C-alpha cells in the first residue's frame, strides 16, 4: 500500500512545511485538543490513509509528529488530536483559532484496511492511541458491509482522560460496532469497566482464523494485549501495532526513530507484530 503523495516532495524539499490556518480547536480532555486545519485552498483537500501522521510546525518553536485523527473519507477536513506534553505541543495549543501551523505529510505506513477486508476487526486503543485509530474506525463504519464483526476496545487513565467521549458514546449506541471502554481509575458514578484493556478482550468473541487487530497505545499496554490475543490464537502477522519513537524528519533521513532494522517513520508507524517480535521486548532498542 503506498502512502499518499507527500505534499512537500517538490523543489521545496521534504523538510519544508506548508502553512495552514487553524479553523477550530475542540477540547477533548484537560490536556488534549483536536485541531482542525483549513485545507480549503488545497485542491482535493488533504487526502490521507488511516494511521498516517503529519509533522506539525509551530513558528519558531519546532515540529512534532502528530497522527491524523480525522475521517479519511472527508479529505476537506484535516484533524489532529494533540496532547500538550512538551514545548512544541504546548506552543501548538497556544496557536488558537485563526493562527497558522506548518504542516508536512502525510507520512508513514497506514493501517492495513485492505488486508482486513472481509475479516473481523478488533480495534484496541489506549489513551490518545485512539487518535490514529479514529480514522480506521470511521473507515470501517463507512465501508461497514465489507468487514465482519468490528469491536472497539478503549482504555484510559480516568473517565475524564477519554478523548472523543461524545463520539464514543454514539459508537456505543451504534449496532454496527461493539464498543467497550475501561479506565484504570474510576471516579464515583462511572458505570463502564474498571481495569486494563486486555481484560476487555474476554468480552469479545475472537475467531483467530478471521481476526485482524489494530492497536495503538502505550507500548506496555500493547505488549500485554498482544499476549492476550496470542492466548486467543490470533497469529502475530495479523496483530498490527502503531509505535511511537522520536521522529524528527519523518522521511528516513535523521535516524532518530530507529527500532533495530526499522525506521518507525517510514517502515511504520504501523507494524505487524511478527516484524516486531524479535525486538519489542528488548530494553533500549
Amino acid at each position: 500500500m503506498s502512502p499518499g503523495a507527500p505534499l512537500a516532495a517538490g523543489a521545496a524539499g521534504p523538510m519544508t512545511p506548508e502553512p495552514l490556518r487553524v479553523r477550530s480547536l475542540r477540547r477533548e480532555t484537560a490536556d488534549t485538543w483536536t485541531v482542525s486545519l483549513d485545507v480549503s485552498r488545497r485542491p482535493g483537500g488533504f487526502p490521507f490513509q488511516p494511521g498516517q501522521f503529519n509533522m506539525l510546525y509551530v513558528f519558531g518553536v519546532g515540529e512534532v509528529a502528530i497522527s491524523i485523527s480525522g475521517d479519511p473519507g472527508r479529505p476537506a477536513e484535516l484533524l489532529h488530536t494533540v496532547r500538550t506534553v512538551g514545548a512544541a505541543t504546548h506552543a501548538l495549543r497556544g496557536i488558537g483559532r485563526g493562527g497558522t501551523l506548518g504542516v508536512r505529510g502525510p507520512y508513514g505506513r497506514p493501517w492495513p484496511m485492505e488486508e482486513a477486508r472481509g475479516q473481523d476487526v478488533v480495534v484496541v486503543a489506549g489513551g490518545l492511541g485512539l487518535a490514529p485509530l479514529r480514522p480506521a474506525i470511521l473507515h470501517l463504519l463507512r465501508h461497514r458491509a465489507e468487514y465482519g464483526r468490528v469491536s472497539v476496545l478503549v482504555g484510559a487513565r480516568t473517565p475524564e482522560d477519554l478523548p472523543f467521549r461524545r463520539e464514543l458514546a454514539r459508537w456505543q449506541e451504534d449496532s454496527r460496532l461493539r464498543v467497550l471502554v475501561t479506565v484504570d481509575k474510576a471516579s464515583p458514578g462511572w458505570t463502564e469497566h474498571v481495569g486494563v484493556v486486555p481484560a476487555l478482550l474476554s468480552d469479545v468473541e475472537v475467531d483467530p482464523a478471521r481476526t485482524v487487530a489494530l492497536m495503538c497505545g502505550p507500548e506496555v499496554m500493547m505488549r500485554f494485549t498482544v499476549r492476550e490475543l496470542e492466548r486467543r490464537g490470533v497469529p502475530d502477522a495479523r496483530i498490527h501495532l502503531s509505535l511511537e519513537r522520536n521522529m524528527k524528519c519523518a522521511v528516513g533521513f535523521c535516524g532518530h526513530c530507529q527500532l533495530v532494522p526499522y525506521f518507525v517513520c517510514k517502515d511504520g508507524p504501523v507494524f505487524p507484530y511478527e516484524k516486531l517480535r524479535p525486538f519489542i521486548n528488548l530494553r533500549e532498542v
Partner: protein
Amino acid sequence: MPPPLPPLEHHPFLRGLSPEQVSAIACGIRELSFPAGALLLREGEQADTLYLLRSGRVVLELNVPGRGTTQLETLKAGDILGLSWLFPPYRWSLDARAVEPVDAFALDASCMRGPTPEHPVLEPALAMRLLRHLYDRLERVRLQRLDVYKAGA
C-alpha cells in the same frame, strides 16, 4: 428475549471438566440474580460463596476514608468472584457491587475449601483453575498499577 444463559458446566471456569469433577467442586448451587446497585460481597462479612458470573458486570470497590469509594476492577460474565473463603479468617476483603443486572451461580465454599477433614486436599482441577485465574488477575493488576497513560509515564 435474550438467549438463555448457559448451564453451570459451560461456565468458562468449569468448562472442560468431567461431570464427576464438576460435582466434586460444585455443591449447594444457587442461581441468583442481582439488580443494578446490589452488593454481592460486603467487606468484613463471612466469605462462604464462590460466584460464577453469567451475565452483567460487577465492580470491586474499596471504601477509602476521605476519598470515598474507589472502584478497583470490573468483573463480568465468565469471570469468578469471591475468593476470601480460601483462607482464614474467611471474610470478604472488599465490596462487590452489581453495575448492571447480574446473573450468577453461587457455589457453597464449604465443598471446595481445603484442607479440611472432609476435603483433605483442594480438588486439583479446581486448584489449577484458581491459580490460572489469580495469575491473570495479577497480570492485570501489574499493568494497571503502571499507570501507563500518565503524561511522561
